[in-house]
């Protein structure tokens, strides 16, 4: 018993010093969305966003019910960021909203084999008229 107490003490003592030195625990960078609030409670979204997205997919694809609350397109519209030149960054690029947590926990995302990773852009309409190929390269798949 005394040995145990000793070992525990040995484990905790250096930790107090270490806690101040280390720059903290590595964490994903979660970028804030553009809107005020997510479509559901954050705690809920962290746990169940994947269920809601596949549920939404089933309803849309199999039953033709198109609702907005858990639409992937809206997720991307709100959570995508833009780079320095104002161009949207793919939401599954390293460090972006989807990728940062999914890499952190080694969970694959299979949304983007079909779906677009950038928000639909109204302003880009003229640009894509000039460069039609870029418009083709980024098919905008609607939900």
């Amino acid at each position, binding site marked *: 018993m005394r040995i*145990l107490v000793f*070992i525990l003490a040995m484990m905790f003592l250096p930790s107090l010093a270490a*806690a101040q030195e280390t720059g903290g*625990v590595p964490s*994903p960078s979660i970028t804030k969305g553009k809107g005020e609030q997510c479509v559901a409670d954050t*705690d809920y979204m962290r*746990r169940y966003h994947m269920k809601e997205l596949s549920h939404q997919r089933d309803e849309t694809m199999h039953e033709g019910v198109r609702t907005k609350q858990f639409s992937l397109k809206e997720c991307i519209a709100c959570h995508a960021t833009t780079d320095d030149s104002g161009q949207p960054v793919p939401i599954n690029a390293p460090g972006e909203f989807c990728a940062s*947590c999914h890499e*952190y*926990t080694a969970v694959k995302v299979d949304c983007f084999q079909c779906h677009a990773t950038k928000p639909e852009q109204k302003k880009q309409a003229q640009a894509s008229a000039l460069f039609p190929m870029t418009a083709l390269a980024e098919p905008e798949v609607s939900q």
Partner: protein
Amino acid sequence: MTALFTILFYAATAILAVGLAFKVVQYARTPAPLKIPTTPAPVTTGGVVLRMAREVILFESLFKSNKWIWLFGYMFHGALLLAMMRHLRYFTHPVWEWVALVQPFGMYAGFAMLAGLGALWFRRIFVQRIRYISGPSDHLMLILLLGITGSGLAMTYVARTDIVALKQFMLGLIRFDWQPMPSDPILMAHLGMVIALMIIFPFSKLLHAPGLFFSPTRNQVDNAREKRHLAPWAAKLEAGGE
């Protein structure tokens, strides 16, 4: 809750590590006075290494003695390995490449564990001969493992937890920079049972894991005729000392 689990995790880790080290030393020091490899046995050291490898990887002896126990035992242990590899993602940052690769398969390993454990428990309850020799700890161990598996599956398929926060909590434990634990009841049950398992490990039949390597009938070379087997303490006796 976070504080309680933090302390429990450190205590359980210490008990597991120290207890296991103590047991391994004890096993290593236990005399094996006689040459008793189960024949046919390998006659070279290399052969023994191969035999132990087959024992560890394929559960050879169990296969030879009972096909049903082997089937369900192997199913459980294989799935357990896969599930544990999948759990490494909570303890490593960045997640190792091969862990990310096996991660999706581990999701189904839980069902194989459940099936294997269920069958082994069924055997303890309904096979009269086995029921007779089963002590309370045999049943409780299976119940504990079933509980861990069940709660793990429940978190994957029913009531999910915040695994990002969970990984932060785990990395915090390792780096001594404590982070809050998500307070989902199933997660607490899962981790609580894992802590119990870690604490029980060095005092229970779960020691068959390290113990396997110290089985004289499996780890001895069959060379009694070529080389006389003399335990150190016996050599001392023979030399006239006490």
